């Protein structure tokens, strides 16, 4: 009997696990697949995109903004942000702690709103001006300098910032490194300022949910690019049977994250040439800059089917 119960218990657990895993996620996916977003595109824009994007002017303001956000999404982003700030401020010693906390705030939608307000109130008016002055006058700098650094750390930690300021002021030392930290401070402010723009796409992190979806025009432009570059061996016998499926993993900038993996298996010189022509088209097509970074979640993993059926002779 006990074995019976254990068997049934184990089976139930298995079924429950299965149910949880499957039923939990599928509906989200389905919702994502069903909806077809539509873009209004002018005729000239469309022709430019379908031409192959050589001439298209695609670099717009939103791109850089989104890149930053894209990095913020995953939990691992902390490290990436550090590197970003270091690059910007490279000559001076960047203080890592302030940037790292920010991403955590970015993830929840509720938090970002309060931050910018605080930042605007505190930093721009009183702090920035004093800092600039302080840089010029070394003696007076000590006190104001310390304040901003504390403020940064404070930003990282949610609300209590204003209260902490008074106790921290007394620190007397002046280091060039700390001056650098002061200057560094302005970058985080700018990041905060972009937060308003960021909010538009704040839901990027959830693959299925409300994130912006790949528009039909982007998809067509991608298809047009591949059609332009795909040079299939159509003269071979049974060329119509040479259907090649390739899985492509992309980076947010539209370049390949690795060599495309061919999902179709086959042997022989005909298969090899068909396979190579498909892979070559993808290599040559990068960067796929017709795909907007906002929709990265939808196109970071693409399965492309190269099927020459429309090219063969009919009669």
């Amino acid at each position: 009997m006990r074995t019976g119960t254990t068997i049934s218990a184990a089976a139930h657990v298995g079924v429950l696990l299965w149910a949880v895993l499957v039923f939990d996620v599928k509906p989200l996916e389905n919702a994502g697949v069903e909806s077809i977003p539509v873009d209004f595109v002018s005729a000239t824009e469309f022709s430019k995109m379908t031409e192959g994007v050589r001439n298209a002017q695609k670099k717009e303001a939103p791109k850089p903004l989104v890149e930053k956000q894209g990095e913020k999404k995953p939990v691992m982003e902390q490290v990436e942000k550090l590197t970003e700030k270091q690059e910007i401020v490279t000559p001076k010693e960047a203080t890592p702690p302030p940037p790292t906390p920010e991403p955590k705030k970015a993830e929840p939608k509720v938090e970002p709103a309060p931050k910018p307000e605080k930042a605007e109130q505190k930093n721009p008016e009183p702090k920035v001006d004093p800092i600039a002055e302080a840089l010029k006058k070394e003696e007076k700098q000590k006190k104001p300098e310390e304040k901003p650094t504390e403020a940064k750390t404070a930003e990282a930690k949610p609300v209590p910032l204003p209260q902490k300021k008074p106790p921290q002021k007394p620190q007397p030392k002046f280091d060039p490194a700390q001056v650098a930290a002061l200057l560094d401070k302005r970058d985080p402010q700018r990041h905060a300022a972009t937060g308003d723009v960021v909010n538009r796409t704040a839901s990027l992190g959830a693959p299925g949910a409300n994130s912006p979806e790949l528009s039909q025009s982007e998809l067509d432009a991608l298809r047009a690019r591949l059609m332009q570059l795909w040079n299939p061996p159509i003269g071979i016998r049974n060329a119509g049977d040479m259907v090649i499926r390739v899985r492509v993993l992309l980076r947010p900038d539209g370049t390949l994250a690795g060599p495309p993996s061919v999902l179709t298996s086959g042997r022989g010189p005909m298969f090899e040439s068909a396979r190579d022509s498909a892979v070559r088209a993808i290599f040559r097509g990068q960067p796929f800059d017709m795909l907007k970074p906002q929709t990265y979640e939808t196109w970071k993993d693409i399965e492309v089917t190269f099927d020459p059926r429309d090219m063969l002779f009919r009669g």
Partner: protein
Amino acid sequence: MSGWDSDSMSLKLTRRRMLALGAGMTAGAFAGLHAHHAFAALKLDVTQGNVQPMPIALPDFVGGSPADSEVSRNVTGVITNNLRRSGLFAPIDPQAYIEKVSNPDAVPRFPDWRAINAQALVTGRVTRQPDGRLKAEFRLWDVFAGQQQAGQQYFTTPDNWRRIGHIISDAIYERLTGEKGYFDTRVVFIDESGPKERRIKRLTIMDQDGANVRYLTRGDELVLTPRFSPSTQEITYMAFGQGDPRVLLLNIETGQREVVGNFPGMTFAPRFSPDGQRVIMSLQQGSNANLFVMDLRSKAVSRLTQTPAIDTAPSYSPDGTRICFESDRGGSQQIYVMSASGGNAQRISFGEGTYSTPVWSPRGDTIAFTKQGGGRFGIGIMRTDGSGERLLTDGFHNEGPTFAPNGRVLMFFRDPGGNSGPSLFTIDITGRNEQRVPTPSFASDPAWSPLLS
């Protein structure tokens, strides 16, 4: 009893563990299944491509010694010319090359080749061996994938360097297109020289690219319709000597000739069977012509058709089981298909105009023909059931298609009329890439050999 209990307990524990393990594995399996469903969020179908010649870089092969550098350059030239003429490749101007290849065994600097849009790169070396032979080696690189696709080496006598070039061309062609090449082949044709009213026609053989021309007959008799044996170095053709025109057999290597069969009338339109052991031809009987086949070893002759019409231009399917031929039994010249042993013939051509000189593709999937109508002659192909007819070229006079051994390219002759004469052309069976074949003078009736190697 207590001992038994403890035993059962331990047993149960292990069982329970196993069950737990099993449940875990079940869950894991389902999770894996689920993950599989999840991947590749976006699916895209690409059903149209852009067929264009593939840009390929062919830097001169490296010579083992300064004396070899000329041979190396010549071999590279042969390969470049072959690939360009195929229409499937666009060799890049060497002036554009950024990297100078000095060691063909080293991995090339792919970014340098990507910069000039090369999709494939061929490097190689030709060296003279101590025993006097030439050693030729090559490597084919996929520039965008950054890896080697093929590599071979060959040995040959120094005067055979052109063939080395052809063989390497075939290897490159096969690797990149997926089909056997056709560069290491020869063409036999009728060389026509002299003024129009006194044309001298000689049976001639040359490499597929027009090099190494050799005359096989002296020009003192009229020769027509040479055909290559698919398996031996033999040619069959029709000659007007003394008496009736006859079908002859010629061994290219020995120059030995013999008449095929001993028939009471004119024989014409000969062609080998795929195994090279039989010759099929037409025999004139009064105002009619019928098809006969003769076994070259036993000399046994069998009759395939018996009609009050002209049946001619027979051609075997590559598996040797069927024959296509032209016949006017229905009133006008049309193409018919029947079993290789005779029997009922089925008409497959139904377009406007008349059809002649059908040739079965070595691939087996199509039949090429000459189509006449409205004062024009065109070269076309159709499937073996007569469907999918397409004209590849059309004009005042095009005639006599012959397939390259890979079934991908057709050669034919074109006569512009007037006082000039015919010349040879090739065209891809897709209808693209028509190319003139260089010949010393006018030329007609080409026949493509099988691959030499």
